[in-house]
């Protein structure tokens, strides 16, 4: 008896880097395609892959591309550790290992017919971009669509050109704030949660998707609650250490949940009890 490769969820598939784009000083986007030849990489908005760098290691990275597009697999990555630093040094023609897609998705279907509020911070805009693409492709299915984004400084605003394009549309409300203004920034200054107070949406019928640092999500939920958005209509994308993405390694446990397979996207009322507990 021996193990069959196809059944092993820990086995990565080699992908080649087609293109690489610098987004910010520490953030970049990779477009990947299977080395075996082009194939549409099916995923749902909010899902992630495990990206492997030869001899270095493997990390979970959300997919930042368009779920309805047949093109390459797109990941936007901030270099914050050994593997993401190694990914930053890679160039087109190089190869990485890919396992996935894994995890739960933003419930874009059940949000149909409602106002959609996206609250994002920092590189948290990357896992939300597939939602934005999907909503724009199916714009008539949604009510008001609000994108609220916060970055540390104007130089840290991710997908800046796209945000400007989206802001210029009449069927989207886009508001951006920075923690600290520099240079010629004439936009809003302050935490992203402040944007929730003044955004135009119907709090009693809106669905909110929140992705960013945990502390930002904490205050976002508070601000959404204060506007009248119920916990059952708030979704968060959680982050924990992950080694396997399939529930074997135990690292990503968050109370009774595995962030890798029960999350990363959780309906807030499912994690409300543990979200406020220290060091879970």
């Amino acid at each position, binding site marked *: *008896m*021996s*193990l*069959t*490769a196809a*059944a*092993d*969820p*820990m*086995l*990565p*598939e*080699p992908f*080649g880097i087609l293109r690489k784009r610098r987004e910010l000083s520490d953030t970049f986007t990779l477009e990947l395609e299977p*080395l075996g030849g082009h194939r549409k990489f099916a995923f749902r908005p909010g899902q992630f892959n495990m990206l492997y760098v*030869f*001899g*270095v*290691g*493997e990390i979970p990275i959300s997919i930042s591309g368009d779920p309805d597009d047949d093109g390459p697999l797109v990941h936007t990555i901030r270099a*914050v*550790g050994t593997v*993401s630093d190694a990914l930053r040094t890679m160039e087109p*023609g*190089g*190869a*990485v*290992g890919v396992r996935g897609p894994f995890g739960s998705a933003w419930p874009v279907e059940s949000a149909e017919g409602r106002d959609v509020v996206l609250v994002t911070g920092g590189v948290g805009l990357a896992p939300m971009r597939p939602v934005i693409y999907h909503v724009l492709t199916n714009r008539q299915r949604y009510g008001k669509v609000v994108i609220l984004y916060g970055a540390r400084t104007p130089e840290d605003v991710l997908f800046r050109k796209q945000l400007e394009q989206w802001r210029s549309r009449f069927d989207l409300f886009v508001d951006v704030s920075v923690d600290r203004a520099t240079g010629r920034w004439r936009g809003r200054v302050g935490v992203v949660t402040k944007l929730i107070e003044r955004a135009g949406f119907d709090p009693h019928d809106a669905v909110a998707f929140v992705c960013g*640092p945990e502390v930002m999500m904490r205050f976002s939920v508070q601000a959404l609650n204060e506007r009248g958005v119920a916990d059952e209509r708030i979704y968060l994308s959680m*982050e*924990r*250490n992950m*080694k*396997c993405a*399939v*529930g*074997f*390694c*135990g*690292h990503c*446990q968050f*109370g*009774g*949940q*595995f962030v890798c*397979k029960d999350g990363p996207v959780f309906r807030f009322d499912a994690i409300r009890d*543990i979200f406020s*507990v*220290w*060091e*879970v």
Partner: protein
Amino acid sequence: MSERAVPTNIRMIDRDGLDALIRDLVGQGRRVIGPALRDGALVTGPVASVDDLPAGVIDHQEAGGYHLDTHGNGALFHNVVGPHTWKRYLYPPVRTLWSARRAAGGLEVMADDAPVPRYAFLGVRGCDLAALRVLDRVLRDDAFADPYYSASRDALFVVAVNCTRPGGTCFCASMGCGPRVGEGFDLALTELPCEDRHVFLVEAGSEAGTALLAGLPSEPADRAALAAAEARLAEAAESMGREMIPDVAQVLRDGLNSPHWATVAERCLGCANCTLVCPTCFCSTVEDVTDLSGAEARRERRWDSCFTLDFSYIHGGHIRRGGDARYRQWITHKLAHWHDQFGTSGCTGCGRCITWCPVGIDITEEAKAIKNREGRA
């Protein structure tokens, strides 16, 4: 008992019969693993005949303490579990998952296609058989299956042993896992070392077990032996010195903010012994091992522990910085959140974490302490 008919699936064998059993399993091409004496502890190791089994060894276990003694009657199983668990064979402490090499224009990933061993485990106690059922839920029967665990588990032959002498830190009776073994065995032994004759009752629990038992030199189990076994098992259940509080899952869910975690943390060394000796702890990490030329890499999976600081690291810091948060993670996962994740407790009452804790932290006592402290708060 004596009024009922003698069950037909229970036979009686002697020491020679047990020897024949072991040799038959070896003859099937199985790696037979059973109790072994090493470094003053009962561990597990290869067994080729009944003479390889430590005879007349009894263990004394207490919180933070373990030593062996000898017993004149030559019994083989008048002891309980040691620091080894069966998971080390089905979910090895270090295993290469796959290897990779740089190739022209990319990367080549090679699956591990080494044959999976066909094991027979001899001497699996009720707690440890329950632990295998728990690991089945985690590693084989959930959304994803670990192929190595699944294949070696499916090929496994289990010779279980009913415990007639509980150890000093056992609490399986309160977890519903022992001292009589539950389901999932091929054969189950109950040792009866009487003055005149040293015999084992053998119960078949599967077709493979029935077939093997049919080929052994055995005799029908007599009523006296069956009654003696029942009496010993009842006495073992009664004489267990520890028990888990029945409402532990709710106590821990309600106690996440208890001040008691800081009290445990004052004693806990964060050494991870409890997780390494636990028969169900499955947490692991992965690591790349590269050759000197840098052309080849192996992806290794190693047992990991939620007691290490690095376990919860994400960019920006460690989630569980304090020993209090780490002990809380371990015990609440084991006894409360495991139910949410896998529909079963992660604890089977084997007592290893109590025995092998260098400072003698007792999971049953800590659960009680959380309950009592919560009650007063």
